[in-house]
């Protein structure tokens, strides 16, 4: 399925409008973005700039009103709802802003959930979920319910759940938004390690010091990309409205 020569994400002129009450909201007004395998991208922008809509689109939770979205070379619009579920299950690890753990079940079971839907046997699930929790430093709290965990711990369980299926793409919507500085550092370390092991990481944040950890920074404003810079080279810059991401030239 995965084609090495394909970018993980290719979106072309994506528009997303939806109706809220009487008004039509234009959340994305023609966004084009190319993200290559192994990139670590931070997305920033003021609230209402379309960050979350973009993230939900990338995570196949929301569909564009117009424009194209290719995930690993596959046109997402051609897939039905169940195929999208499978796609989210196999290719994407989503870390939600509000953790979004299922309440009243243990950390281990939460991490096992994607594997249940992937159809793995109980033994294999246990093994992989335990390893994923160990990888985020939660190996000691497998049986804790999510309500017994601190915010930082819950976020680490959520990250373990995102990585347990070994997805190529990790999407994180303000993963440090609700965390103290200590937990923030821990979570960012995990993302760096994941990126170091070859995974593509896309992260929304509103904190500059968090964004600094990424290799590339995309700024959104009013439903459009206003800047797209590589941080790896330590310098800016491409101009506002650039359609071609850095490094593709």
């Amino acid at each position, binding site marked *: 399925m995965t084609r090495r020569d394909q970018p993980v994400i290719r979106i072309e002129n994506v528009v997303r409008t939806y109706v809220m009450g009487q008004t039509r909201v234009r959340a994305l007004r023609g966004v084009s973005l190319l993200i290559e395998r192994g990139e670590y991208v931070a997305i920033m922008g003021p609230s209402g700039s379309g960050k979350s809509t973009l993230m*939900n689109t990338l*995570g196949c*939770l*929301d569909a564009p009103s117009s424009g194209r979205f290719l995930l690993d070379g596959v046109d997402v619009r051609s897939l039905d*709802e*169940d195929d999208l*579920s*499978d796609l*989210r*299950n*196999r290719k994407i690890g*989503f870390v*939600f802003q509000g953790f*979004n*753990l*299922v*309440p*009243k*079940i243990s950390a281990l*079971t939460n991490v096992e*959930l*994607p594997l*249940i*839907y*992937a*159809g793995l046997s*109980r033994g294999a699930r246990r093994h992989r979920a335990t390893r994923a929790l160990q990888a985020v430093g939660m190996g000691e709290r497998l049986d804790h319910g999510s309500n017994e965990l601190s915010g930082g711990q819950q976020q680490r369980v959520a990250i373990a*759940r995102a990585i347990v*299926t070994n997805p190529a793409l990790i999407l994180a919507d303000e993963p440090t938004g609700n965390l103290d500085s200590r937990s923030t550092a821990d979570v960012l370390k995990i993302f760096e390690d994941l990126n170091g092991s070859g995974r593509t990481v896309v992260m929304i944040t509103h904190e500059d010091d968090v964004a600094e950890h990424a290799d590339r920074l995309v700024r959104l404003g009013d439903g459009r990309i206003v800047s797209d810079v590589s941080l790896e080279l330590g310098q800016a810059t491409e101009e506002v409205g650039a359609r071609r991401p850095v490094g593709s030239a």
Partner: protein
Amino acid sequence: MAIETLRTAWTGLMSHRLRTALTVLGIMIGIASVIVLIAVGKGSSDAVQESIDALGSSTLTVSASPSATTTTGATTSVTLEEADVEALEDAERAPAIKSVAPVLNASSTEIVDGSSEAEPGEFVGTTPAYREAHNYTVQSGQWFTDAQVSERARVVVIGPEVAEELFPGESGVGKTIQVNGTNFQVVGMTKAKGSSGTSSQDDNVFAPITAVEDTLAGYGELSSISVEAVSPDAVEEAEAQANSILESRHELSEGINVINQSSILEASNSSESVFTTLLTWVAAISLVVGGIGVMNIMLVSVTERTREIGIRKAIGARRSDILAQFLTEALLVSAIGGALGIAVGVIGSQFEIAGVQPAVAGYSVVLAAAASLGSGLFFGTYPAMRAARLRPIEALRFE
């Protein structure tokens, strides 16, 4: 995956114990009432059937109506007599009739033995054929014989209730009693057989018809004639034959009543069955109410767990996974409720209810089990479909 779905459903139910317990209770009451009410219905119809068997299901009682109409249209009065008995005994004209017994009732008799007295329900003068036709068995002593009938012997067979009044604790066989002043010797006591539905069959006294003629009732006119058909299936045939023989003998167009006692009970049995049907409807309605409870709870649960559904879909649950999860929860609730309901219903049916000893019908248990699962399936499908159709992005935004 099936085990996983079951486990997930169980976890879902256990996270709202009180709510789950109340829903289970609703189903349980529905199922238990189905079983108990059907058992009560079956118990009472069993009791009626027993009475029919005790009466003798192939017995007819022939009597003359006080105003009869002759074949020429005149009004007359008829009396049944010994010759009618002989006519009915004619095997050629009445092949469906097995035996015939004349009945001569002595009215308002008083039996005295020393200081104790008894007033029997009926004092029946008859022949030995009567015993068999009415399914009486003798517990001690013996029934009087044909020889004693022709000898006009003053002997009686008494019912157990009469014996209890006159000779508490014993049968009284061999004792001599006074019936309206005349001495009779007790030769037997019948075995208790309970009520015929209208009156007790155990407080009667039986004596040779000849002795009753001599001492208590006088000659010529019979109270009625007991006719036993060759089999329960031949009762209607015997009825027709008895009617035609007697009407032609007395030259009547009408005036002979042939009553099949068990048919009276069967009529009462059919009114019982209307009652049973009503009870079953009440039970079915309570089951539907229980099922609506399941649906209500499932809808609340789906709404409350919208976000959870969104999370599950976001990490890879297909529509069928969500559908299966909620449907399994509904089925689990109703299966547990059904199992408990069957247990409660069967236990509850061991006790006498409103004078009826309920009899658990095997089919009602199967019916109840199927009904509980069926209601879970029926009332769980809509909420589960609603959950499955939720769009992940909207479900995740739900607060």
